[in-house]
């Protein structure tokens, strides 16, 4: 319960802050502070158990399949970290209360701060590696928001993005690593994983897993080569920097090293990767810190350097080095938090963080100055302060390690150099800010001490530096002991915490670094002057932005190269995929040689003989299709050829026993031609001058694709036709009359057996009609003034003969339509054909007499008609529900009336009537709307050479 409270408290706090948004900044502060205090309280209650070596654990199943459980674990290591997170969190909260202006965004700030606190506590308290990763990534996201808190500042946005990118990438690597670790261990529970350290290291996946996990840790902790994001995260409000870069965010990485130490440590992979990364970071960070002009930048690089120190300690091959690392984690958190806060105070009071402008503040703010000086001396590793203790241990361990053989000396030498550098930049901080003349170049002048309570957190931290430095055993001895025990997953080695160990080599190293550092500081201008230009080139943010921009450019080019907006390419790819892959399988997927594969297509059925008439018909159809291709630029001619193809289709349907298809084809053909001719009017002519002529290469490509497609369909059709099958069609033949009440099997299928398809089909029609109407709204088209030969259009719009004949044909055609409708169930015909015949009769009036004439006489809203048709069909289908039958179940009966005789009625006919209405309505909706009523024709002078 304790741990749940610990993790949940900040989240609950954030929620409450958001809920009490109206209460203002102070309320938000109070909630945040109380939350952190409560967390400390919880930790206090847990202390006795922790001190006794108890490991608190809590676990709930969540997602078994990926091994993600709600599992928490509080041991010495997580206790220490939780203590830092809550403790420094509380101080930062207090500090932020005075640092931030009291505006609405402050509420957001405290919300985010609490969320971050919660995420961080989640990382350290997770007992499940995947759960830890969840919190880990949450810290990345929330830190993104915190760094970019002042989002109107470009550098804040860029810094936030960079931090997110680097730590996010690390998080992804860590995810992979954790999953691999889970695979190796068979569990993602920390307790299970920690129990099988040796096994893990012998697993073949260990190196991959280790590298991935380290990528996570190094990015988060800003280790070389991933350190560059951290300085730019300084564009965050200073309380954020104080929190994220002392005790929390960056410490997550080293926490991970500590947490998985028993599992990962002990192989050369670990020693070399970790120690080298740490070593480079240690020295490099320190050197860079010395070169900074920005106060926070200096602190940032010093943070990088100290994290390198910690990492190096983890990587060294002695157990004691790990203890030193843990000790330095605590110490660094304390002095670095106080330094950031001090820097924030300076910034807050003077309006600048530029070290070239700041000077001589001691006179104006001595209290702050004293605090900052103590903290920086601790950072420099000056004796009697806490930083000295862990640095002394560090020097000791660099001497104790035995990793690099002949080059073992490099490690202590580098450590000394780093120590000297840290002395130098600490001095630069102290001297440059508080002394070095008068502050004559400050935005806010004169500076003065901040509010009393703003310094309070700094005071506490500085006191801790002092007390720990003086009496380490009493203050942190127990804490370090249990932390080390938990980290090493066993009893820690012997060590002594004391400011004084007598004169030994580490002390000498300390003294050397102090002297050398002071000298370095003294000669800093000469030493570093010339590197300022180089430094500008090394501006990581700009380089990173360049990289990102280049990445974006490459991506944009790649995307544009892929998606060039050309439909022809897309269709070519589509056809290629649709034809080539199936063809590959059709030809046996490479199992058969080519001729054999072709031969295998032919099935056992004997082919039917080809009679000349059918052969000629097929040939004309094929020829027609080819000619359409050839004539595609002479549009009317192509259309006439297309009509020929349609006619041949009708004849072939007749020949191949499909009278219903022939009827449908006849009528659909007419309406389609009408539509195409309507469109033709507006299309600009292709008079041989328009660009976009097919290049030979394109011709070859398209020709090859088309031929491949043709060959595929040919082959597939032939292969199927020469094979026997056993069709459900037999059932329909048997049941058409008895079950469906009709002799036209196709129609019975359409309205009964598979009436549901027809139902869907009329929905498609209606939707198409609605879509067309919607699209035509407000459409403006330019109409040509000349015909395809360049002459003015004929003067007579509605030839008399045509108009009379159209009217004459109307009743006759309607009668034919009724005939088709009524006979459909038993003979070829049906609602669709009837509807198209009706539509054609009415469309004839549009063509012959114009829109106004026709619509003033046919007062039917086609849209309503189409909708009503669907409703009728639907209600007919629904009708069977009332009799307890499934949807669309039909009923039919034979009735006898005097005079009329016997006749048949079927509900399917009602359904067909619905089809009829929908089709009539839709067809007229579409075609009549293409008439001029809804389109605006703009006169134009472009000529119109569409035909021959």
């Amino acid at each position: 319960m304790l741990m749940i409270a610990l993790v949940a408290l900040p989240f609950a706090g954030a929620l409450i802050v958001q809920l009490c948004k109206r209460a203002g900044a102070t309320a938000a502060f109070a909630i945040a502070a109380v939350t952190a205090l409560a967390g400390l309280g919880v930790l206090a209650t847990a202390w006795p158990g922790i001190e006794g070596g108890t490991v608190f654990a809590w676990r709930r199943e969540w997602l078994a399949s990926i091994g993600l459980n709600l599992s928490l674990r509080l041991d010495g290591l997580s206790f220490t970290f939780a203590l830092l997170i809550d403790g420094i969190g509380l101080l930062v909260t207090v500090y932020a209360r005075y640092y931030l202006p009291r505006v609405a965004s402050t509420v957001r700030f405290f919300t985010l701060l609490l969320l971050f606190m919660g995420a961080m506590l989640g990382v350290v308290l997770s007992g499940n590696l995947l759960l830890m990763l969840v919190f880990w990534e949450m810290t990345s996201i929330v830190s993104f928001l915190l760094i970019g808190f002042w989002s109107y500042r470009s550098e804040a946005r860029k810094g936030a993005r960079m931090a997110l990118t680097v730590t996010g990438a690390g998080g992804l690597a860590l995810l992979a690593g954790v999953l691999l670790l889970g695979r190796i261990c068979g569990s993602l529970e920390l307790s299970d994983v920690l129990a099988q350290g040796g096994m893990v290291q012998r697993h073949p996946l260990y190196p991959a897993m280790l590298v991935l996990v380290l990528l996570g840790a190094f990015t988060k902790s800003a280790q070389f080569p991933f350190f560059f994001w951290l300085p730019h995260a300084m564009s965050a409000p200073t309380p954020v920097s104080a929190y994220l870069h002392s005790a929390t965010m960056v410490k997550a990485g080293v926490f991970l090293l500590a947490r998985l130490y028993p599992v990962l440590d002990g192989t050369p992979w670990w020693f070399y990767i970790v120690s080298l990364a740490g070593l480079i970071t240690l020295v490099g960070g320190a050197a860079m810190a010395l070169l900074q002009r920005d106060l926070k930048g200096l602190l940032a690089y010093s943070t990088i350097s100290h994290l390198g120190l910690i990492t190096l300690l983890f990587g060294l091959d002695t157990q004691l080095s790990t203890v030193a690392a843990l000790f330095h984690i605590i110490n660094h958190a304390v002095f670095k938090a106080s330094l950031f806060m001090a820097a924030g105070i300076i910034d807050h009071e003077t309006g600048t963080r530029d070290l070239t402008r700041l000077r001589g503040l001691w006179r104006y703010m001595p209290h702050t100055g004293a605090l900052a000086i103590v903290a920086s001396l601790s950072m420099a590793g000056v004796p009697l302060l806490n930083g000295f203790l862990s640095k002394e241990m560090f020097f000791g361990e660099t001497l104790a390690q035995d990793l690099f053989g002949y080059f073992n000396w490099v490690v202590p030498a580098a450590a000394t150099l780093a120590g000297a550098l840290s002395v130098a930049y600490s001095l630069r901080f102290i001297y440059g800010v508080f002394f070095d003349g008068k502050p004559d170049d400050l935005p806010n002048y004169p500076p003065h001490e901040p509010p009393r309570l703003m310094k309070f957190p700094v005071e506490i931290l500085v006191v801790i530096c002092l007390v720990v430095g003086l009496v380490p055993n009493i203050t942190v001895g127990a804490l370090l002991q249990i932390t080390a025990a938990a980290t090493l997953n066993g009893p820690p080695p012997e060590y002594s915490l004391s400011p004084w160990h007598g004169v030994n080599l580490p002390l000498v190293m300390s003294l050397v670094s102090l002297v050398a550092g002071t000298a370095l500081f003294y000669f800093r201008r000469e030493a570093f002057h010339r590197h300022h230009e180089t430094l500008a080139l090394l501006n990581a943010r700009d380089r990173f932005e360049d990289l990102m921009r280049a990445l974006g450019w490459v991506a944009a080019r790649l995307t544009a190269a892929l998606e060039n907006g050309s439909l022809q390419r897309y269709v070519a790819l589509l056809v290629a995929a649709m034809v080539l892959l199936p063809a590959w399988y059709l030809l046996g997927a490479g199992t058969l040689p080519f001729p054999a594969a072709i031969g295998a297509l032919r099935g056992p059925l004997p082919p039917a003989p080809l009679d000349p008439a059918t052969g000629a018909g097929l040939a004309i159809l094929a020829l027609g299709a080819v000619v359409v291709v050839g004539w595609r630029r002479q549009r009317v001619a192509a259309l006439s050829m297309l009509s020929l193809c349609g006619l041949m289709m009708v004849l072939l349907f007749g020949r191949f026993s499909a009278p219903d298809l022939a009827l449908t084809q006849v009528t659909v053909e007419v309406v389609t031609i009408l539509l195409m001719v309507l469109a033709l009017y507006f299309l600009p002519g292709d008079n041989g001058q328009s660009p976009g002529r097919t290049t030979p290469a394109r011709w070859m490509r398209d020709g090859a694709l088309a031929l491949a497609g043709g060959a595929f369909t040919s082959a597939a059709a032939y292969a199927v036709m020469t094979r026997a099958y056993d069709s459900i069609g037999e059932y329909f033949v048997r049941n058409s009359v008895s079950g469906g009440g009709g002799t036209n099997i196709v129609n019975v299928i359409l309205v009964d057996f598979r009436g549901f398809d027809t139902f869907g089909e009329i929905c498609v029609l209606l939707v198409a009609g609605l879509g067309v109407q919607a699209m035509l709204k407000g459409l403006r088209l330019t109409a040509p003034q000349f015909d395809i030969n360049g002459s003015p259009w004929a003067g007579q719009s509605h030839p008399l003969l045509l108009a009379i004949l159209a009217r004459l044909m109307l009743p006759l055609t309607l009668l034919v339509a009724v005939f088709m409708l009524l006979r459909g169930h038993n003979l070829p015909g049906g609602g669709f054909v009837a509807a198209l015949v009706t539509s054609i009769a009415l469309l004839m009036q549009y063509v012959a007499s114009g829109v106004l004439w026709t619509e003033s006489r046919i007062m039917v809203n086609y849209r309503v008609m189409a909708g009503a048709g669907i409703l009728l069909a639907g209600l007919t289908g629904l009708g069977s529900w009332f009799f307890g039958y499934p949807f669309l179940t039909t009923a039919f009966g034979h009735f006898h009336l005097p005079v009329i005789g016997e006749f048949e009625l079927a509900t399917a006919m009602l359904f067909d009537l619905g089809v009829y209405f929908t089709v009539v309505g839709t067809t007229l909706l579409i075609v009549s709307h293409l008439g001029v009523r809804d389109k605006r024709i703009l006169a134009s002078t472009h000529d119109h050479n569409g035909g021959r």
Partner: protein
Amino acid sequence: MNQALLLPLLVPMFAGALLAMMPARRQTWQRGVSVAASLALLPVAVWLLCVADSGAIPVVAMGNWPAPFGIVLQLDRLGALMLVLTAVLAVAASVHASCGDARLGRHFDALFQFQLMGLNGAFLAGDLFNLFVFFEILLIASYSLLVHGGGARRIGPGLHYVLINLVGSSFFLIAIGILYGLTGTLNMVDMGVRLQALDASSQPLAVAGGTMLLLVFLLKAAAFPLYFWLPRAYAGATPSVAALFAVMTKVGVYAVLRTQALVFGLDTGPLAGFMHGWLWWLALTTMAVGAIGALAAREVRVLTGYLVLTSVGMLLAGTSLQTYDAWAAVLYYLPSTTLCTAALFLLAGALDTRQEPADPALERPAGKAGGRAVKRPGMRMEGALFLVAIVTAIGLPPMSGFIGKTMLLRATLGPGAPAAWPVILGASLLLLVAASRTGSRQVWSAPYVRHGVRSPGRRVVLRRWKLACAMFLLAGNLALVLFAGQVERYVDATAGQLTDTPAYRQAVLGTPAQGD
């Protein structure tokens, strides 16, 4: 009781027909009917989900004609999941549309309802040709919805979308033809039974037909190299439409799963798993292409389009593995990614408009004078929701996308991992970069203040409703996290059901497994 399977079809169908008949000026009534019909779908879908969760496979024989002769609808866990997902999207999209988008053109509501009908029909169809018909319904409705509102940004990509899909439909019919020509049946389960008994000489033909069918579905799913219609179409669509379209690509994935399970059979038969090899690589490429495209995107809606593409790659990669774990991962990831990308499309409407000022004269760059940009009131909320949605979409913790991605990573852990993991994780990284860039540009740097807004009060109300829609979708994502255990159990059961061919045979054909 089984007849209730028809409700997800009949409700939108009748609503759509009524809406089609309503006069254009009855705007309020139209909005009302549309929203009510969409709302009605949700309880129906949830109820059907509960029914399906019992493990039963209710079947309705249309017109009382038994399978395989008549058309049957069948409800399984997969279908029910998709129904619920669609219903959730429908509610959000229709409410969002009624806050403005619907007025941009004619017949929005009717088209919307028919789109739902097509989607729901596809999820229930047990007959291959009937599946085609429902595909056509949803396509024709989507064509119109896509160009709803007009303008060059919609018409051009709309034309491409339409023509590409028309070509696709032709191949769909050819594929159905081949399979019918070989088996003589159209019912998917029956087809599966008959395909198993197919003689060896006909098998290449069956595989060719099956491949073509899968490619058609991959076209709908927008897999590489068939994805080209997607980015511009989605980027151009009105937000409400794009949100509903978030499920369109998933229909393709659904159809792949459906046919794999019913027709080509996972358990036995020579056709099992024939697609594995190439689909796997196509899926990975899709993912990479999507991530690269996202990196190139400069607007939220474009970015989201590529997020959809990347998620398609993830889903197809899992699908192609044809293992129980992978399918469970796919089924978990599918609703997650659909909901968050839909939410992103809804939010994009608000976030992207600020970059394209309606009238330059009305816009003045702010922030120069005061040093701080004056933000449009309350964009903070859009920004927060955007963050949640994008975090989900990229697959960062703690949202559902992370769980889905992790499930998939776990499922691909094996011989495929060296290829899949770098792609999945690399794509996530690129998406992260892309999202942080586009997001910070669109959400954070708010250089414009809009003046001269008419009736700000009404605008505020509409904005709240729109935000509520996005929140509703993201609440779905949240539910996927909070009830991850239950959802996981459901998707496990779904994957199990999909691999249990005899159960389908029993339910649909009423016979215990024949032919083996």
